[in-house]
């Protein structure tokens, strides 16, 4: 396959391919973080995760329009504001959903699956009715487009770097929040033993609501970031949902480290295979690999012990 290329071409292609794998890793991790928090900490399978992401994407779209029309001078930095708005919009919707729906279903985990799936359909149709069935184009400030040439052949995508940076920042923030803050301690206490946590004075309902809101908020930020690389339409969320669940389940539902490791494994496997085989075949083999590993290790890569 490579005999016709020179050594320098090959080495630069491998560098680019390595970078492509890292971008895919960041994308997977960013999609999965919000879901991992909700699924891992609360045991709720949020089928509407993709729709929370798309809410973030729509918020980004509207922020961009707002800046274009009213404050074009600040257009180059609108994306940061859009991400913050996306976080709060998706988070607020998440908390409302938790209060209206999810909290009534904590004892029936399978029903949350059905309920959130219904919610995803409702949200899709809501987006379609309000924003129209067509995809919207989100315009990016010019500095976020294109690539930085490293050598003649090797180029580094700016939006890839951006997603990477964002993913690292959010992962670190979530890790600090979960393992260093007193709120994180409460969350973990509730996960490990809900009754005892309640008995020592933790407001478990409030913890649940904020956990769900946080997960949805991160989904919103992810959706906002993905306007750079993907489409924004009523059903675009569905494009991400399979990969997201794959990462979370494969990683072991309750472990942040597991999610990271799983995102890394799946993205590297897929990106490498896509390069050497074809696109569809890479996907098939990735799914097959995940299925086999989950058969051997149903709890996922990493697992923490929980008292039920």
């Amino acid at each position, binding site marked *: 396959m490579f005999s016709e290329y020179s050594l320098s071409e090959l080495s630069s292609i491998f560098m680019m391919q390595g970078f*492509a794998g890292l971008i*895919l890793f960041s994308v997977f991790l960013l999609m999965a973080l919000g879901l991992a928090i909700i699924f891992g900490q609360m045991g709720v399978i949020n089928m509407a995760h993709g729709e929370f992401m798309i809410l973030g994407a729509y918020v980004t779209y509207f922020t961009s329009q707002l800046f274009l029309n009213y404050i074009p001078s600040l257009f180059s930095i609108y994306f940061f504001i859009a991400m913050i708005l996306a976080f709060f919009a998706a988070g607020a919707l998440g908390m409302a959903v938790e209060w209206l729906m999810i909290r009534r279903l904590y004892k029936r985990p399978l029903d949350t699956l059905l309920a959130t799936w219904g919610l995803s359909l409702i949200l899709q149709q809501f987006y379609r009715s309000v924003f129209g069935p067509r995809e*919207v184009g989100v315009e990016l400030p010019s500095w976020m*487009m*294109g690539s930085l040439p490293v050598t003649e052949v090797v180029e580094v995508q700016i939006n890839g770097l951006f997603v990477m940076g964002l993913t690292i920042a959010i992962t670190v923030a979530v890790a600090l929040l979960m393992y260093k803050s007193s709120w994180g301690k409460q969350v973990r206490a509730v996960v490990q033993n809900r009754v005892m946590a309640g008995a020592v004075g933790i407001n478990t309902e409030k913890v649940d609501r904020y956990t769900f809101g946080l997960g949805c908020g991160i989904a919103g930020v992810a959706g906002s970031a993905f306007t750079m690389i993907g*489409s924004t339409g009523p059903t675009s969320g569905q494009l991400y949902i399979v990969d997201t669940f794959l990462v979370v389940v494969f990683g072991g539902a309750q472990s942040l480290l597991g999610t990271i490791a799983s995102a890394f494994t799946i993205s590297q496997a897929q*990106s490498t295979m896509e*390069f050497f085989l*074809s696109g569809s075949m890479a996907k098939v083999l990735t799914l097959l690999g995940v299925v086999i590993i989950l058969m051997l290790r149903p709890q996922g890569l990493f697992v923490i012990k929980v008292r039920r």
Partner: protein
Amino acid sequence: MSSSDDNSMKFSSTRRKLLMGIAAMPAIPVLASSGLFSTPALAQAPATSAVNTTGLAVTDTEVTVGILHSVTGTMAISETGSVQAEKLAIEQINAMGGVLGRKIKYIQEDGASDWPTFAEKAKKLLVNDKVAAVMGCWTSASRKAVLPVFEQYNGMLYYPTFYEGLEQSKNVIYTGQEATQQILAGLDWVNKEKGGKSFYLIGSDYIWPRTSMKIARKHIEAKLGGKVSGEEYFPLGHTQFNSVINKIKLTKPDVIYAAVVGGSNVAFYKQLKAAGIDLSKQTLLTISVTEDEIDGIGGENFANAYSCMKYFQSLDNPNNKDFVAAFKKMWGEKTVIGDVTQAAYLGPWLWKMTVEKAGSFDIDKIAEASAGIEFTKAPEGYVKIHPNHHLWSKTRVGQAQLDGQFKVVFETPELIEPDPFPKGYQ
């Protein structure tokens, strides 16, 4: 049509009732000679029993047709334009007096992007509503799902999308292009004008891109003497194209030939741009991006790519100017019109003309009368129905501009004959 025809048709039903009522009266010669009732009107609004022998939903004043598209679900993105175009055509036909003196009434059903639902709704339209024709479907999958229904209950479907060919039915009129019409001329053009010798084929993984690429590969290898340096398919909804973009960079093809659809489309072009592939230097020819898709992709991400279609909104002819103006008036200044939207607009018109030629709403008569129907007012220019129920049409190549419109850079001099079962390409 002249305006005097319009008037005569508008009042034709009242006139017919009057005529029936006064048939027995001795005064009739006086009235008839007064010029109030002209004979051509009678010919244009013939009795229902004569034009409808199979029990379709045709009354003295109305004829019912069905519109069957997805307005919910994934495909709503694409099918919305078709619904809008069909409603516009129906409204315009009604304003001109309808079909055989009858106003068109439509019943709209939602296929909900789900193929069994399409089949179910098609059955409902044909069996319960007894519609005289159906304008509908978008994906090949939905067409394949409804085809047996249309054949069993003898309905008439006007199908707007460019598609892979390999199909022909008495009960379907294909108003979009079949694969060879769309593909061959575009490849010839890129070979001649851009010196394209090596091609990288990339598509979504389902029947239309795969059949199209098969035809493209045969044409490139056998007729153009070029080579295919790569052929890749990605699952529908795939959003990460960095690996294949690296492969494209490595193989340096003269032409990237793309048939990626749906949400993947947006991701593909955004990532292509981000990876530093400059479409003004790297030739890219696609058969899956119309003005509709550019809305989602963003004009700045797609500028300078070439798209091969039979229709572009920017076509410069009087028919198209009127059509675009009417479309925008009805659906808003910001709407864009893509290839399929225009093809959907042809459906009601072709049906109307066929009915008038056949002098009947009967499906069998329409199926037979369809061959040779000419529509000179088509926005794409002149079209004509071939005996195989596809359309003769021109193929054009447009270069995408920053504003999301295309600049037409090539147009086949002649109409291309539809050839749904191309020899040597299968």
